[in-house]
């Protein structure tokens, strides 16, 4: 995204005003880039800019210092207007060492700013990064605005008074860089200082050192500016709907959504999970929400995780299990049991790069096939997908509503990008969210476990402990009319049909498909799902501004699909389906509507760039 420069009255004197900036912090896994980025984000959010972030780190916990594969990065895009992506390319790259420069320079456009810590540009690091010559000295950076500072030395100097050892002292250099960036974009230091104090309550010395480094970085900017070697900028508040906001990640939003959803259903929440990147964060978050009627259980494996959740649902709680693709694969058989016994269950799949172990810390949306089709026998399940960090909250509630109302497992799809990305979120008033209380069966009169509600076709839910309703359920086929096991052929046909109908009917209980941006018919519809929402929407907006006839359709209910979707798609000459996989939703759409949807794929573990999507659109609607 090109940075527009312009004198502006809104900005305080001496600060040049920008509408949006993309900064990328990059350094060793050990350099604390994620923390630095997160702090800058928090502060920036508090200052009322719109933000979008993209953390990008290696699969190793702390790969050896100085190596290219050990580089960890955090990108933030903030602006005075409504942005939807972390930005295609950084305006400013903060490179804490040669490896970081090596890996990320290629993404910085001509004229972009590169801030490097010269203190880390020694022989060993240069060679580890694979530099023959020092890029600061040859013409590697001639096309960029280079700001070379020995952050290591300056940091050590700043913390000297506190008498830390060299190692601990150097640990503060990321905070020094944070201080400088805070100055450069006119952000308060207070939130960062508050956070530092909180984080190191037990080590006040470390806290002071970090604060000293922060202030030093900030001060460095001021003096440098006076000397004219650096410019300060201002990015005005974004105009946003009035209300109380916070920064939120997809993981937090899903956790809260599930908790609120459970409360709306009148159920306690049970999470059975087994750690896996990037899904573990949901387990961690819910483990801290026990006061809200939450039980979390770290099982011995994914099978036990989903089974414990099924056992909890059987006992009358809302069973939830969370994992990522490979872990969900292990849950397949048990999900079939939940389907056959018609118990509510939510399976949160936080997708990552595959196949197999694949790229555990990279994002992908390649588990749609598994979600919609990935079970033995005729086992259709509702599938819903989140699209932004904030949307995770509402989609999670929707998953709870469907699971508890229709007595079925529901697959809730999210991905590694959404899980970690942060955005400002208008905090809703929980009381405004309609509830959907579950009523357990208590009346023995005429009861059998597979009695169905005429409308939803959901079976009645009788919980162990209820007098007079003792019964048995299981995975063997059961008689439609008595609930006893039955091998009778017509009955099996009938049961298979009613199970499928029950799920298909949900299409009548979800919103009709709307157009996210653009018109209800036209030359081209770009159809997306999941975390590509922001990039596609941005690309479609820009293309329409450029006069192209293109619209954006975003699908939240993957299965069953909205009733009107087929008609809607037939209203466009062309349908393009960009996915971060090798083409999966496109298969479902073609099979369902016989519409010649075209697949566009990017399987790189990275979010789409808006510009790539714009190009794809132009290629299809121009001429």
């Amino acid at each position, binding site marked *: 995204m090109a940075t527009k420069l312009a004198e502006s009255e809104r900005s305080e004197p001496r600060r040049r005003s920008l509408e949006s900036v993309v900064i990328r912090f990059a350094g060793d896994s050990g350099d604390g880039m994620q923390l630095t980025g997160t702090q800058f984000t928090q502060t920036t*959010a*508090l*200052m*009322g800019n719109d933000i979008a972030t993209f953390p990008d780190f290696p699969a190793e916990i702390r790969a050896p210092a100085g190596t290219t594969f050990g580089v960890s990065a955090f990108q933030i895009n903030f602006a005075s207007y409504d942005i939807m992506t972390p930005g295609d390319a950084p305006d400013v790259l903060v490179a804490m060492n040669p490896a970081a420069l090596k890996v990320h320079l290629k993404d910085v456009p001509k004229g972009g700013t590169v801030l490097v810590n010269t203190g880390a540009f020694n022989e060993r690091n240069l060679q580890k990064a694979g530099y023959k010559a020092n890029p600061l000295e040859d013409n590697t950076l001639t096309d960029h605005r280079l700001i070379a500072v020995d952050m290591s030395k300056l940091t050590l100097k700043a913390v000297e008074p506190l008498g830390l050892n060299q190692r601990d002292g150097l640990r503060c250099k990321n905070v020094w860089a944070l201080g400088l960036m805070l100055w450069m974009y006119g952000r308060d230091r207070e*939130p960062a200082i508050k956070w530092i104090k909180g984080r190191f309550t037990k080590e006040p010395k470390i806290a002071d050192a970090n604060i000293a480094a922060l202030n030093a970085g900030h001060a460095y900017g001021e003096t440098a500016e006076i000397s004219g070697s650096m410019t300060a900028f201002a990015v005005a*508040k974004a105009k946003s709907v*009035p209300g*109380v*906001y*916070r920064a939120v990640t997809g993981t937090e939003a899903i956790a*809260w959504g599930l*908790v*609120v959803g459970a*409360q709306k259903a009148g159920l*306690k929440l*049970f999470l*059975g999970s087994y750690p896996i990147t990037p899904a573990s964060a949901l387990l961690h978050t819910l483990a801290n929400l*026990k*006061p809200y009627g939450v*039980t979390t*259980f770290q*099982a*011995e*494996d994914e*099978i*036990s995780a989903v*089974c*414990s959740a*099924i*056992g*909890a*649902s*059987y*006992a009358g*709680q809302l*069973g939830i299990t969370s994992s990522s693709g490979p872990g969900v694969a292990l849950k397949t058989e*048990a999900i*079939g*049991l939940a389907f056959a016994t018609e118990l509510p269950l939510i399976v949160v799949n936080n997708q990552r790069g595959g196949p197999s172990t694949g790229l555990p810390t990279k994002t992908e949306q390649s588990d749609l096939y598994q979600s919609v089709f990935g079970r033995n026998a005729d086992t259709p399940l509702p599938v819903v997908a989140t699209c932004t960090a904030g949307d995770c909250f509402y989609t999670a509630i929707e998953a709870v509503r469907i699971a508890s109302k229709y007595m079925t497992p529901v697959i809730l799809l999210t991905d590694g990008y959404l899980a970690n990305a942060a955005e400002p979120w208008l*905090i*809703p*008033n*929980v*009381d405004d969210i309609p509830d959907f209380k579950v009523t357990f069966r208590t009346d*023995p009169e005429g*009861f059998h476990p597979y009695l169905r509600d005429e409308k939803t076709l959901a079976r009645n839910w009788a919980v*162990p*402990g209820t*007098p*007079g*309703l*003792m*019964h*048995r359920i*299981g*995975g063997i086929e059961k008689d439609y009319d*008595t*609930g*006893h*096991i039955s091998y009778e052929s017509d009955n099996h046909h009938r049961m298979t049909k009613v199970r499928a109908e029950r799920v298909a009917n949900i299409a009548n209980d979800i919103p009709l498909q709307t157009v996210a941006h653009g018109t209800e018919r036209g030359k081209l519809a770009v159809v997306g799902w999941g975390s590509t929402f922001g990039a596609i929407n941005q690309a479609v907006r820009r293309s329409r501004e450029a006069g192209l006839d293109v619209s954006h359709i975003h699908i939240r209910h993957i299965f069953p699909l909205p009733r009107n979707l087929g008609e809607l798609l037939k209203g466009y000459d062309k349908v393009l389906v960009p996915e971060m996989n090798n083409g999966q939703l496109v298969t479902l759409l073609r099979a369902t509507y016989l519409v010649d949807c075209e697949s566009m794929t990017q399987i790189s573990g990275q979010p789409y760039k808006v510009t790539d999507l714009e190009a794809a659109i132009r290629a299809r609607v121009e001429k």
Partner: protein
Amino acid sequence: MNIETPTAKLTPNDYASDQELRWCPGCGDYAIIKGVHKALADLQLPLEKTVFISGIGCAARFPYYMATYGFHTIHGRAPAIATGTKLANPELDVWVVMGDGDCLSIGGNHTLHAIRRNVDLQLLMFNNEIYGLTKGQYSPTSKVGTRSPSTPQGSIDSPVNACVFALGAGGRFVARTVDTNLKHLPEVLKSAHAHKGASFVEILQNCIVYNDGVFNDITDKTVASDRQIMVEHGKPLVFGKDGKKGLRLKPGLFELEVVTVGENGITDKDILVHDQKNKILATMLASMEDAPFPVAMGVLYCNPAEISYEAAVWKQTAEIVAKAGEVDLNKMLRRGNTWTAA
């Protein structure tokens, strides 16, 4: 679906559902369910608070024949599902029924962890040393050399000793009994029920179709008294027709030996007394398999923990809830940094 209403006093039959038993005529499972009905009636367990959860197998059909709540789940996963049920509602009295394949083959990991965590479950393993429902393949408890459809020339791998495994997994209640011993079985089940925590019970069960008589050398009337020792806490470890045989520790060694009171100077004092809190003794007893040693029956080990897993979880949660005080979802969403846009 039959609606049972709890009567003043429940008889064993009140614990039977209206479903016809579908095991093979002569299957040991018929005896076991009788014993279970008796144990539950002795304890007068309320039907609606009792849950039987099973995996898949002949044994696992058990819940259908109980008038309690029942969940016939999937192969090997019953302990995991039961863990979730017990965690969700500790009020429920949860019994897990598994075959040897269900429990120790595909289900081995869940059995291990249910035992390790010490979830308050009664884990009943019906050991017929064979896969019944799939028509007779050998199982992890089958003796070496077992000829079966999958091992036509005889099995090669050494079996696992279920009780030794349970002890190795950290089990705090480990017992063994026999399907047809309808005096002994209900008593063992009642002890298992009394133990708060994971109670592992191995029940030797005859599969008349695929492994008929595999336990004859232990259970046959003619040999039973010499090949079984009924252990009881605080009682001497004696067996044999006239109760003259007994177990003692080989002097200076960590080994049991069979001795006869009255022969070469052995007196009652030499005989070991069973201490159900001693894990090492339990391990030795559980390990006894081949003659001249008898197979140990009864409660081999019972050493309750201060608190069972699910109870501890609820206790911790209660503390956290108390600490948190009044909670409110709107507050939850507003914890941490927020800002207001006008």
